[in-house]
């Protein structure tokens, strides 16, 4: 029976975890500080108390966390584990890329690895270079792994449940700047959607802006500014990056004839390149060359003043659209 509650993004994720633990006895939830403390961002608060041994803390051993989740998933559990920062995947990426991703394929589907890995990423004021990266491109270049990036509180709830329900390994990339934001109306308890899909944040005819992660919010803000200038921008947010809604994105770009992709990852080799590449391959005629709005190719500096100079926001996105319009 669906009900609606006002929840922050973090609370919505907590509600999703609670529901999954309630409805599916095979769900386990663990990671560093995930159990008794309830998570460093409070996302798993109260769950240890409610579900006992199925929710627990672990040593600071990312290979053991990820690998044990792969192994448990091979044996019928649905582990939901946390890598506290996406940057920390790098000490244990083997367990995702060489292990989880291969389970189904090599066994011809006789073994599967339905695990969910929650992490969070992105820039935040004062975070150092080792705590600021956006690494979705690594996972998106790993066939077999599903990837999503919840942005709204509703996403934080829905996508996490879809991920847990998915029979593939899924990386759910949250964002720490969103956890404790304003409470939003969240519909709880409805049917769990299959993975995939996109969200049209705004329809328009001037240009298509494709975006994901926290930058979506900046993109919407940019679109509002642009609308006041008479530019109606179509904002396609892709909370699911694998599977990616190629048909919808290509159709929109074909309609508007202009494309901007905005992400917080470094520009070169970011997934924005894939979007531009697919549009080019599709032979879609553009009124002006497409553009990417992204962090330039550098390490992220900790000082807020320095980071602000390189992390794009609404202004950069709006400027990119204006340049497209001016170009043709």
């Amino acid at each position, binding site marked *: 029976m669906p009900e609606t509650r006002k929840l922050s993004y973090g609370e919505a994720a907590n509600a999703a975890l609670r529901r999954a633990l309630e409805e599916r006895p095979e769900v386990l939830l663990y990671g560093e500080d995930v159990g008794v403390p309830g998570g460093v961002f409070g996302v798993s608060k109260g769950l240890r108390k409610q579900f006992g041994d199925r929710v627990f803390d672990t*040593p600071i051993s990312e290979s053991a966390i990820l690998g044990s989740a*792969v*192994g448990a998933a091979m044996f019928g559990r649905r582990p939901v584990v946390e890598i506290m920062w996406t940057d920390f995947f790098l000490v244990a990426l083997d367990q995702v890329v060489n292990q989880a991703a291969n389970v189904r394929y090599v066994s011809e589907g006789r073994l599967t690895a339905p695990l969910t890995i929650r992490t969070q990423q992105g820039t935040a004021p004062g975070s150092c270079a080792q705590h600021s990266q956006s690494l979705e491109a690594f996972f998106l270049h790993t066939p077999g792994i599903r990837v999503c990036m919840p942005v709204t509180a509703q996403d934080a709830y829905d996508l996490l449940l879809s991920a847990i329900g998915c029979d593939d390994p899924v990386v759910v990339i949250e964002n720490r700047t969103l956890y404790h934001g304003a409470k939003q109306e969240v519909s709880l308890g409805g049917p769990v959607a299959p993975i995939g899909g996109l969200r049209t944040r705004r329809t328009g005819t001037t240009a298509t802006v494709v975006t994901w992660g926290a930058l979506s919010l900046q993109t919407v803000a940019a679109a509002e500014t642009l609308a006041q200038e008479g530019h109606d921008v179509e904002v396609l947010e892709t909370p699911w990056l694998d599977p990616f809604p190629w048909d919808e994105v290509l159709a929109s770009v074909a309609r508007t004839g202009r494309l901007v992709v905005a992400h917080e990852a470094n520009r070169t080799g970011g997934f924005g390149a894939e979007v531009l590449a697919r549009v080019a391959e599709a032979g879609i005629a553009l009124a002006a060359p497409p553009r990417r709005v992204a962090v330039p190719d550098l390490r992220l500096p900790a000082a807020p003043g320095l980071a602000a100079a390189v992390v794009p926001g609404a202004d950069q996105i709006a400027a990119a659209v204006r340049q497209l319009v001016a170009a043709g």
Partner: protein
Amino acid sequence: MTESETGTGAMLRDLRDVWRIRLLEEKVRDLRLGGDIVGSVHLCIGQEAGPVGACSVLEPADALFATYRGHGWALARGVPAAAILAELLGRATGVNGGRGGSAHFTAPEYGFHGENSIVGAGAPLALGAALAGRFDGTGRVALCVFGDGAMNQGAVHESMNFAAAFDLPVVFVCENNEYSELTPIRDMVRNDVLADRARAYGMLGERIDGNDPAVVRDRVGDAVQSAREGGGPVLLELMTARLVGHYIGDAEQYRQPGELERLAENEPVTRLQAALRAAAVPESDIAAAHDDAAHEIEAAAREAAAAPLADAEAVRRHVHA
């Protein structure tokens, strides 16, 4: 226990089981040298006592994680020789239809949860199998096999601590064949008694004779039982030796003079045959242990060779659910 479990009957069975692996591996070598199998192949010739002894104490619900040097473990666990050979030959009837190959196949329906070609990477997976068993009522024990060199890999360390901290039923089996690829383990550690590391994690560790199936059966049996009863993980260091190169084609320049001769005296077939002869077991029985195995492997090889090649049409399936 009956004589067949402890006496010459068991020894004869062990000899046959050692031969099964030995002859499978020799067959693989021939096929590789003949070009029917391609790519890197890691044989376990000389190391057969480990899989023979250890697999004999596992239950069907238990989990077994091996390495790229895993043909013998798979066979001892019950995977048919024909399915293994077919896999290496890239046949449709291979355990994974050719997708895994020599170094990365898996056969969960036989309780064989896969080789792994990343050194040490099976240990975290084994934690998960044990963890699942805590909730699914199977009482599953996970047996995780790796080499001496893998002891220096971070993932193995994390796994031992994790298993110990949470009393997970994992038996870590380190096959110490004294080499990691082409490098002697003694040059890569200060203390080359690797079982000593168990204490760091507060768990039991023991170095044992890894070339005697009875010793392996006994010590792994105790470890499995203790793990199953909630005693947590155990590390067993099986002292053994591979009588062949790390991979087929290895020039083995790292061997000391006389080393292979010395190893040959201590290898399982030689030892079991000597023990059987000392116990006055008839030569015909000893020969039968070999012949039964040879018959099985030859038939398996014929079966595998006759199977159709893996179907390239299906190659894109099973990337996702």
